[in-house]
């Protein structure tokens, strides 16, 4: 689902439906934010006052929660999200070089989206795959023992061109 829709009535309706689902769940703000992001791809600014109103919170509180957690994003991501593990077990197997390769290859830093809109690059600290590092997560799939060539292969499978 894309940007326009999120700004549209359909997006607002989706947000309202998720609010209805979680407003009476104890401590329901995180599940609610996850659900909004799962259905729209991000948490649009328009969701904040609606959520705050329904949960009896201030906008600042809702915004504070969204900004605290690395998972929540307030703008749409690329068509795919590539997370590179930056933590020690991956460093021990060449994770730093893989990070450098990915950034150069996509021409972006963490938080950025490739110019063709295909991939958003994110840092992650541990994917729990530490016996077979370095690890990356592409959308919901985790890949093990990823070297530069394997990363290029994964990107090629997404149709990301061979370097810009």
């Amino acid at each position, binding site marked *: 689902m894309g940007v326009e829709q999120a700004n549209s009535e359909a997006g607002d309706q989706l947000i309202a439906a998720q609010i209805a689902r979680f407003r009476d769940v104890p401590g329901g703000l995180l599940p609610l934010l996850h659900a909004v992001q799962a259905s729209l791809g991000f948490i649009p600014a328009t969701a904040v006052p609606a959520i705050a109103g329904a949960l009896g919170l201030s906008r600042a509180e809702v915004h504070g929660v969204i900004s605290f*957690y690395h998972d929540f994003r307030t703008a749409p991501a690329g068509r795919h999200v590539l997370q590179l593990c930056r933590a*020690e077990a991956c460093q*021990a*197997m060449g994770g730093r070089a893989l990070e450098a390769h990915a950034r150069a290859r996509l021409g972006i830093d963490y938080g950025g989206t490739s110019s063709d809109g295909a991939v958003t690059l994110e840092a992650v*600290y541990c994917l729990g795959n530490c016996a077979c590092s370095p690890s990356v997560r592409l959308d919901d799939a985790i890949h093990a023992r990823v070297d530069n060539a394997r990363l290029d292969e994964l990107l090629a499978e997404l149709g990301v061109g061979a370097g810009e």
Partner: protein
Amino acid sequence: MSLRLFLPRDTTALALGADAVAIALQRAAAERDLPLQLVRNGSRGLFWLEPLLEAEHAGRRIAFGPVTVAAVPSLLEALAGDPGAHPLCLGATAELPYLQSQQRVSFARAGLGDPLCLDSYRSQQGFVGLQRALHLAPRDIVSAVTESGLRGRGGAAFPAGIKWQTVLDTPGEQKYIVCNADEGDSGTFADRLLMEADPYQLLEGMIIAGLAVGATQGYIYLRSEYPRAAEILAQAIARARAEHYLGDDIRGSGRAFELHLRSGAGAYICGEETALLESLEGRRGTVRAKPPLPAVHGLFGRPTVVNNVLTLAAVTTIMEKGAAFYRDLGTGRSRGTLAVQLAGNIRRGGLVELAFGATLRTLVEDYGGGTRSGRPVRAIQVGGPLGAYLPKSQWDTPLDYEAFAAIGAMLGHGGVVVFDDSVDMAQQARFAMEFCAAESCGKCTPCRIGSVRGVEVLDRVIARQDTARQIDLLRDLCGTMEAGSLCAMGGLTPYPVRSALDHFAEDFS
């Protein structure tokens, strides 16, 4: 007769291509008109061999690995004749030395069957502990846990029985059991393996905890980096509810326990128990000052047990086999088994469950087989990002909470990350500070700002600018962080930094 095969659907197995192998097996079997029963089990934790295929053959399970799609046709041929002749054949799984020499207690069932099959769980002693607990008075369950000597496996090693006793003794209409499944430490995957391979064990442990302290609601706080575990747990909860292990009348006992699965949102600090509770309540994951303890004033202000996945899982064994069985394993004040996770630059990475007391060297050399790169091991970080880097002179330290504390290190959650001689320890020290800066909850200045200063100081050290003075500054900063931080995030970040300075000084000059 149909062919019965087992191929894990565990995160690491999948990350190494298990699904493609499964598809190839199904296709090849269909082409040969071979009736195939393919069980997608959990992993045995021998991750370097994944995808590890097992076949039932002459009453035993024979292992093959690591299996590739290309090997599938020849594997099916070998299975029809002499499996041992196949180049990927490893022999009987149960006799693999890596597995056979372990003391699998909490991980005894891991990889044996379909993790979601309740019949399979029940046929392997599953729910025996729960059945016992249903006939015990709460104080007797708590005493058994106390007598077992079980200490929290999440890192702080606090005696579980004492925590449970506090919750039991604190009056409250509503109490909670919270499972800490945030497993944020790099180099750890034991919680994940258990949840993916044997989820009912965790559920059973949580239900027993509920019976012990009088809690009727439980939450599993699972990190969002574990999508596969989330899927499995959600299904396990639904099936357990359908068969009345959860709900308002557990197996006709009249006792109630309900379980909720919650997802974290990518914040390391939410593994700290009070930040975790804040997060469960729908707020920023900032650390609360203690006291009040969560046991007294926990989730939604109610008495709450917060325990790690492995702590809760161990309780099922204590109930099933008795406190003495558990207490008789281990050494000193570290009782029971430790799930060691061999990670990083290691040839045979995976899970090794042993009674406390084996040395780090045994783990890394005998089990791990040294580095995957083939170069000499130089440093081993134990206990996650807040754990010390240990030089060769310390590898004979037994895996025991007190022995590690005595050398200024910690066992933590049992993660062992191996580095070869290409590691630059100044970079590792810098990363420790960088990680603290990225993941600090922001409450304490020494942690929030000190870590940023730490990165800057280390950048100057790495650039060899005024090195001696910068190192003095860094040590000073470590002292300030240690003394002025509310929790172990700021308080223990000095461990990796100082151990790098102390034992690998040549990388700083």
